[in-house]
């Protein structure tokens, strides 16, 4: 395998431009000193601990959240059951749909507020929260709203029924968007839900609870419990839950699958990934570089479908890596609320520690580490965009999900070798292919064992496009007609 040489130009290049700050106003988030959980249509302090949620960009507390305790789980599930047995599952689909349309519209109305809040709580650049998280969340509600009265046309029988009460556990990387992915199809199909956002990012889901309350949804149809893993576990183990939907790590997904063994509870899992982003020698290099950057540095690489393994054809490896390094020197890392920021903060100290541990292993195992020159803020959880070259398929950085802005570069000679290397992972969530040759795109798309294949693009999401994994990346789909299946009893 060729070991691409770092170009002297990339090494020496300094920032050519100084950008004036373009900060979004923090006040727009309308942060409150404290947030409450949402149970049975009412906001209340949870019976768990009151914890401070912090801004990962500066480690300053944003607000206090009265987390749920076990009693709140029981109350929320009971409320969801009452709402299911009561109004919700009996309501005509067209009426359920109108509630979802209301939610979609309200997210759009409060879009800027939600985007700023999401950026503050998560650390992601405001540009991404504003252009992706919030609009796609609204689009999800809008899309599934329209399904509510058309379920009989979905291919799941003439009169498919809801499953019942769904327990939904979501991660911290796209807090509002993942809430939308979970809640919208569940409600459209007539289920009621108890949703647990991640412990480090509860705020946008609790504002979504306000939106849901203002939309006058019947009490108990949606319950939102802030809390840690113990609350998630209580939800998974609860006897009166009919379905669990989980997005998160493969390790936790396996624990949930084991926990549900022998029960009639339905399960859908959207787990980790280690996507190959494959660049052939005939690819348009500049476009491919943009796609690689988007693939691994979008959301600081904290994306389950991130293009974390770059497989580049040997003949263009040096050229591509030099071009990539040039591009990375122009990435702006820093204040997430600055509208020019490309790469924001890592979500938590724990995640930062994991990224550091894995990148250290990359160096220890013999790969070559490179980062563009960039000054990181002193406070907060920061990690510079990092590229490893000379990576072997046996290295931990080629096998394990890093969930950070770290790209591992491997090379290949033939399409068959690219397929072999790309599929040589227990994961199977996504993959990328860059080539000008149409027949090669279709051939690669057919051979890659992954639930999403992006050809000459990467990290595209749409409510109408099913998303989910092969192999240990989970099962079940979110999005599209296929996303209904996880919430219908058929």
């Amino acid at each position: 395998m060729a070991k691409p040489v770092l170009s002297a130009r990339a090494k020496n290049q300094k920032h050519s431009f100084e950008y004036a700050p373009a900060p979004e106003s923090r006040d727009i988030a309308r942060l409150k000193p404290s947030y409450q959980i949402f149970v049975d249509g009412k906001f209340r302090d949870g019976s768990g601990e009151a914890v401070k949620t912090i801004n990962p960009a500066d480690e300053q507390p944003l607000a206090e959240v009265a987390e749920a305790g076990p009693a709140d789980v029981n109350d929320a599930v009971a409320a969801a059951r009452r709402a299911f047995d009561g109004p919700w599952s009996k309501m005509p689909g067209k009426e359920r749909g109108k509630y979802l349309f209301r939610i979609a519209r309200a997210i759009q109305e409060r879009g800027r507020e939600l985007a700023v809040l999401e950026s503050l709580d998560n650390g992601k650049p405001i540009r991404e929260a504003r252009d992706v998280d919030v609009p796609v969340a609204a689009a999800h509600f809008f899309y599934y709203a329209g399904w509510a009265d058309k379920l009989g046309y979905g291919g799941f029988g003439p009169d498919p029924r809801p499953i019942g009460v769904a327990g939904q556990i979501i991660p911290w990387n796209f807090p509002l968007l993942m809430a939308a992915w979970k809640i919208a199809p569940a409600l459209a199909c007539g289920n009621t839900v108890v949703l647990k956002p991640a412990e480090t990012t509860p705020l946008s889901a609790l504002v979504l609870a306000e939106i849901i309350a203002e939309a006058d949804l019947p009490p108990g149809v949606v319950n939102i419990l802030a809390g840690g893993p113990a609350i998630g576990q209580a939800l998974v183990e609860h006897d009166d839950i009919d379905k669990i939907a989980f997005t998160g790590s493969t390790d936790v997904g396996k624990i949930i699958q084991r926990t549900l063994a022998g029960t009639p509870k339905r399960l859908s899992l959207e787990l980790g990934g280690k996507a190959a982003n494959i660049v052939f020698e005939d690819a348009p290099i500049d476009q491919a570089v943009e796609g690689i950057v988007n693939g691994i540095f979008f959301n600081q690489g904290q994306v389950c479908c991130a293009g974390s393994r770059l497989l580049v054809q040997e003949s263009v490896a040096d050229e591509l890596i030099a071009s990539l390094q040039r591009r990375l020197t122009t990435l702006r890392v820093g204040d997430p609320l600055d509208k020019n920021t490309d790469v924001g903060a890592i979500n938590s100290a724990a995640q930062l520690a994991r990224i550091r541990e894995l990148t250290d292993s990359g160096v220890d195992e013999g790969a070559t580490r490179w980062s563009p020159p960039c000054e990181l803020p002193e406070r907060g959880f920061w990690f510079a965009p990092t590229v490893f070259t000379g990576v072997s398929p046996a290295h931990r950085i080629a096998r394990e999900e890093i969930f950070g802005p770290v790209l591992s570069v491997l090379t290949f000679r033939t399409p068959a070798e690219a397929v072999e290397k790309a599929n040589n992972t227990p994961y199977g969530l996504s993959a990328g292919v860059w080539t000008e040759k149409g027949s090669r795109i279709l051939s690669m798309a057919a051979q890659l064992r992954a639930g999403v294949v992006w050809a000459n693009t990467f990290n595209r999401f749409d409510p109408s496009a099913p998303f989910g994994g092969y192999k240990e990346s989970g099962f079940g789909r979110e999005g599209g007609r296929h996303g209904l299946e996880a919430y219908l009893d058929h």
Partner: protein
Amino acid sequence: MTTKSKSTKAKPAPADDRLRVRKTYKLYIGGAFPRSESGRSYPVHSASGDLLAHAAQASRKDLRDAVVAARKAFAAWSGATAYNRGQVLYRVAEMLDGRREQFAAEVAESEGGSPAAALAQVDAAIDRWVYYAGWSDKYAQVVGGTNPVAGPYFSFSLPEPTGVVGVVAPQDSSLLGLVSVLAPVVALGNTAVVIAAEERPLPAASFAEVLATSDLPGGVVNLLTGFTAELTPWLAGHRDVNAVDLTGVAVPDRKALQIKAADNVKRVYAPAAADWSADPGISRLGAFVETKTVWHPIGV
């Protein structure tokens, strides 16, 4: 073949004078018919308690060999055209139809019941292959399609086979049940490791001969006879098996296997008891497929 067996029946007297050539029932792995590597066998009795034969008692190693064979066969079988797979499945029906009296006799011996009932089961099993043969090139059109995404992209989703599927065949229905769980697994391109009904394994072992003469590439279906409780933990825990069908596992025994299956996030299909004579629908096809979504920009 049908004519031949009919003529044999029509002239029983000479046949009685002749010492019959008995069959050794073996495993079916990678297109070959080995005995168990363990050298073990176990007695198999008819519904009325008579000794029928000694079937091979597959071991953990046989099961692993079968998974290796199934994995090896997966790329070609899943990459074959749907039309081709449909023709192969139809060929299975043709081969089975040619031996329907033989299978009716084996089913009747295994399960008891009237010869007419056994023949009806065989006929239903033949028709089931025809049914799934037809699905192989239609399922993707029924469940796949384009996604009207909000942007300049062409996006489509289509079903793909899950991979290697471990199938525990139903214990009650030795042929029709087996066919009903196996055909939907292979119709869309999965490869299979099947554990036959423990106490009624002979129709399954004979059925492997049908598969071997049906243009089905070796390794697409691997068929083991043996003890369900011995083999299923290794099947459910195997890291290179992508999904398991626990139809033939008693409900109380399923939980332990589901726990093992989680080691590599296997898809687990564990349905309630089925009426094998009923319309099979498409739920079994859907249990072992993955949805793949492909995106490409639209532009000039």
